[in-house]
């Protein structure tokens, strides 16, 4: 399983540590809310809304350098629009990996 990293954040910051701290803080506050909304919508079988949640989470996945996971999320987002949840397990593993990583920051 690929691991999150800060390569993109570092490339954006151009050495601006304050910016890096600010962006990480925003991700740490936004990600759990988006994850929770995703889980709620999925439990309620609101597939279009769930796909929208995955779409939003997809951006965080890419910011954290998870390229393969991004592909899984993109496919899952499309599948959800057809009420196909086959990639649920893979996607939620990615979410857990990010959750664990954010705790370390």
């Amino acid at each position: 399983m690929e691991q999150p990293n800060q390569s993109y954040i570092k490339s954006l910051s151009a050495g601006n540590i304050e910016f890096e701290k600010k962006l990480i803080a925003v991700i740490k506050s936004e990600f759990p809310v988006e994850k929770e909304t995703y889980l709620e919508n999925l439990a309620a079988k609101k597939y279009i809304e769930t796909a929208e949640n995955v779409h939003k989470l997809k951006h965080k996945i890419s910011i954290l350098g998870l390229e393969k996971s991004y592909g899984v999320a993109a496919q899952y987002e499309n599948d959800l629009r057809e009420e196909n949840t086959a990639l649920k397990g893979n996607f939620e593993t990615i979410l857990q990996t990010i959750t664990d990583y954010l705790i370390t920051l």
Partner: protein
Amino acid sequence: MNCIIIDDETTARVIINQLCSQIESLNVLAEFSNAMEAIKYLNQNEVDLIFLDIHMPDFTGFDFIQTLKNPPKIILTTSDSKFAIEAFEYDCIVDYLVKPILLPRFEKAIIKAENTSAKATVNASDEVETISGNDLYINIDRRLIKIDIPSIYLIEAKGDYINVKTEDKNYTVHSTLKKIEDKLPDSIFLKIHRSYIINVQKIIDIEDNSVLIKKDVVPVSRSNRPELMKRLNLL
């Protein structure tokens, strides 16, 4: 250039702001988490450039553009490349950035915005119209799928999406009812409710405030009913 950022995701706004801070010619005037706030701001302030997210709840980036009378230059920001073709239908869109946005690509977009005149973008829009011809092309998963317009019998709005139902297949497309309505011939299609457009040639029967079309029962709003009745060859 004075610019504003519209994106419902704070993370995205922070990133775009950071990218703007690295370009001397850009001055970020304000940030908005939803399109409605931005519309209010634009009614009272002039801006040269908007960074606009397509995917926003309730009101998409494309919906937002349609509300603007004289839109400034717009750079779309999105996590999907699948809306690129649609973007060319708008004269004001000068570039399309796929997230995560890197500085070199961002710089390129700004140069484009600085060099683009309104006339050049009008030409791009015309090209798409010519390609479309009498068929309707819809963008699904980065593929442009051709639909024979008369085969469409019902279009239903569902949030940020529309369901296009044809004789053979149904398609879910990220678009608005207004956009597809503009592309369809008035002689065959009619909006009978704020969420439904029907092909009047496919009606099976009409009962009170609903229409049976294929196996779908579709509501008819009171305000749209007179126009529907006018279209019928009543005995």
